């Protein structure tokens, strides 16, 4: 895979189909298990194996995903009672004398993680304790060390964002950078940012805009407009959450505690800006693509069945950097900064440009402004 990939190359499964040089294991040279096995197969078995591998690579509906794969019934039932087993397993492992220390420690961590509280209500000590557990758990599982922050909002900081419609050319470098930075699920091609390609002379017509284009940009007679989570000051998604798994931080970021979310998707229905994403299946990021610089509320690895969203790259913004999308934008269409700092660029934009926000009549008070040169 080349380093200069466009965002649409992210469909890893399809890339594999196109790439004839590599086999199922992803290696381009040398032997792998599946290929050596195939030499010993009879013709009929070989056809069946090919069918399965083709089926693996074509998009499937719910039925196909389930019935076209080899289903290990034992593991299915095992996972059916997974949450109960975590507890039972933890107890038995920690009581067992033979189990090795890592397994014991992992069970202990799983137990504590399953029954920890809501991050929003944690003290700083509790916050760093859960972060330590998550780092250690990742280390046990993959042997890799990540750095995870639990940095709180700083005082006198309120983050805001401005988008220059005149400058955006629809390159989607922001989308690519966002995915690489935030460890989104590669299989479902989850993206926080959408770039809407609009026709000149039609005004801001989202209905007729195309947010899924695959041609050379900038296209003649079109202009581009990006949307993402607007980090509303009066966020409807926060109001509706039954368990306060999502909230507005002191610096204005609307964040999600992935471990506290129950996955009811009420926030998704309440968001007027398409700002929220759901992990419909287990999110997967190839180990070598994982961004190891993480924040608990930001780009740490998510799990199946929880909400996630743009956090203005909390792991970067609270460390004094721009979000990845701002940094990646080659045209300078994206401006980010502290709204409480009178010297900031964002303040200059708000004071000197004719800015507007989307769906202002809903009273959500987005902290995301659009303007034109």
């Amino acid at each position: 895979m080349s380093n200069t990939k466009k965002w649409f190359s992210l469909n890893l499964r399809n890339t594999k189909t196109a790439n004839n040089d590599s086999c199922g294991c992803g290696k381009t040279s040398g032997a792998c298990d599946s290929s050596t096995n195939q030499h010993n197969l009879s013709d009929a078995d070989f056809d069946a194996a090919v069918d399965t591998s083709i089926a693996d690579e074509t998009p499937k509906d719910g039925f196909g995903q389930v019935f076209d794969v080899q289903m290990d019934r034992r593991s299915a039932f095992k996972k059916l009672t997974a949450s109960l087993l975590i507890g039972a397993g933890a107890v038995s492992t920690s009581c067992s004398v033979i189990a090795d220390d890592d397994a014991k420690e992992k069970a202990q961590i799983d137990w504590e993680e399953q029954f920890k509280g809501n991050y929003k209500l944690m003290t700083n000590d509790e916050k760093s304790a859960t972060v330590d557990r998550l780092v250690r758990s990742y280390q046990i599982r993959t042997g890799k060390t990540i750095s995870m922050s639990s940095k709180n909002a700083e005082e006198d900081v309120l983050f805001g964002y401005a988008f220059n419609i005149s400058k955006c050319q629809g390159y989607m470098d922001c989308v690519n950078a966002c995915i690489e930075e935030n460890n989104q699920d590669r299989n479902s091609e989850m993206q926080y940012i959408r770039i809407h390609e609009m026709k000149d002379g039609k005004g801001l017509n989202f209905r007729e805009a195309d947010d899924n284009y695959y041609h050379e940009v900038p296209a003649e007679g079109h202009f581009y407009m990006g949307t993402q989570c607007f980090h509303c000051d009066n966020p409807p998604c926060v109001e509706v959450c039954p368990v306060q798994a999502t909230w507005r931080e002191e610096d204005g970021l609307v964040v999600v505690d992935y471990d506290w979310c129950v996955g009811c998707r009420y926030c998704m229905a309440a968001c007027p800006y398409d700002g929220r994403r759901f992990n419909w299946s287990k999110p997967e990021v190839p180990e070598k693509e994982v961004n190891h610089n993480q924040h608990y509320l930001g780009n740490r690895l998510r799990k199946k069945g929880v909400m996630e969203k743009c956090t203005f790259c909390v792991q970067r913004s609270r460390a004094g950097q721009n979000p990845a999308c701002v940094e990646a934008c080659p045209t300078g269409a994206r401006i980010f900064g502290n709204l409480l700092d009178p010297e900031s660029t964002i303040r200059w934009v708000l004071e000197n440009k004719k800015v507007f926000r989307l769906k202002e009549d809903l009273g959500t008070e987005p902290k995301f402004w659009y303007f034109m040169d």
Partner: protein
Amino acid sequence: MGRSKVLKSLIKDSLDTITHGSKKYHIWMAVLTLTMLIGMYCYSIQLEEGLSVTGMSDSVSWGLYISNFTFLVGVAAAAVMLVMPTYVLKDIDFKQAVLIGEGLAVAALIMCLAFVVADMGGPSVLWHMIPGWGVFNFPNSMLTWDVLVLNGYLILNISIPFYILFRHYQGKDANPKVYIPGAILSVFWAVGIHLVTAFLYQGLQAKPFWNTALLGPRFLASAFAAGPALIILILAIIRTFTEFKVENKTIKKIALVVTVAAQINLIMLISELFKEFYAPTHHSESAYYLFFGLDGKTALLPWIWTAITLNVLATVILTFHKLRNNLKVLYFACFILFIAIWIEKGFGLIVPGFIPGPYGKIAEYTPTGIEIGVTIGIWAMGAFVFTILAKTAIGIETKKLRYKK
């Protein structure tokens, strides 16, 4: 001491009752059990793979589960239409029907809770929602209100019939001073559960299709049509297959309730259609999608027009005394009305709320086989629970089940 002994005997006797019956009864229960097992298998796949095995997506993030949940809250609320005249207005005609109605409410509520759990991305952390243990976002989130009122209503609808049946089991009369306050409370509570469920949708400024003041009242009207319609059908079945006596007068009185509710529901539908189509705005697009399709996407068209046709037909049949008083015609009208409202208050309400999306994207929703399997499984569970409750209640009411000292 004495009471626990009676309770023990009641449990033993009811277990005895529900495990014995005619061949037809056994076949019925076996079919339900099989359906439930298939549903559980489908759910185990969903747990394993995630909600990606359903037809839901980031565009249409609620589907068949939440649709059925919404509809069944209405069915549960409808039990009140029998409770009120029986306990509060002391109308004797409804007395036999009311235990059935409350049993139906319990079954419907259990189905509601099952549908909500099935829709959750993380059922293993659902304890986060238990007040006191987790973090309960009350009173801000309407979902927490819904959790409270649904569980409260469930407790009410279990305890009132249980008290009455427990007394009757011992051959004693139930003391009205004990159950009447509970019954009055449940009347208000029933209106509450459906109104709160409507507010769940009504309160979202992001979804203009739901964000209408008529949604709550219309929920009530349609519920009080569909719920009692189902009760009529169930009473008809019970009358045929058991010794439980249900008079024609009772059924005809419930039919009157269905008729009035169906008429009000139709008036509200007309008002809604007028608002959406007389001076259509940007906010009418969901209604356009539902009734006429948008950009050639017409998945809901056959459903909604079936629903409207059945709804109008049923209301017309019910309105004419001659037709309504013919029981065979009445059962037919109740059946089509039930189907019509299931479509209309189910996915006819939930799915178009998401279409078009926040930025006008039109992505349609089709439930997958697994989703349908889980849904049918939950319905089978409801039928199973109801059969058990009804069989015990009928046993006690027909004086077959009695405490022997």
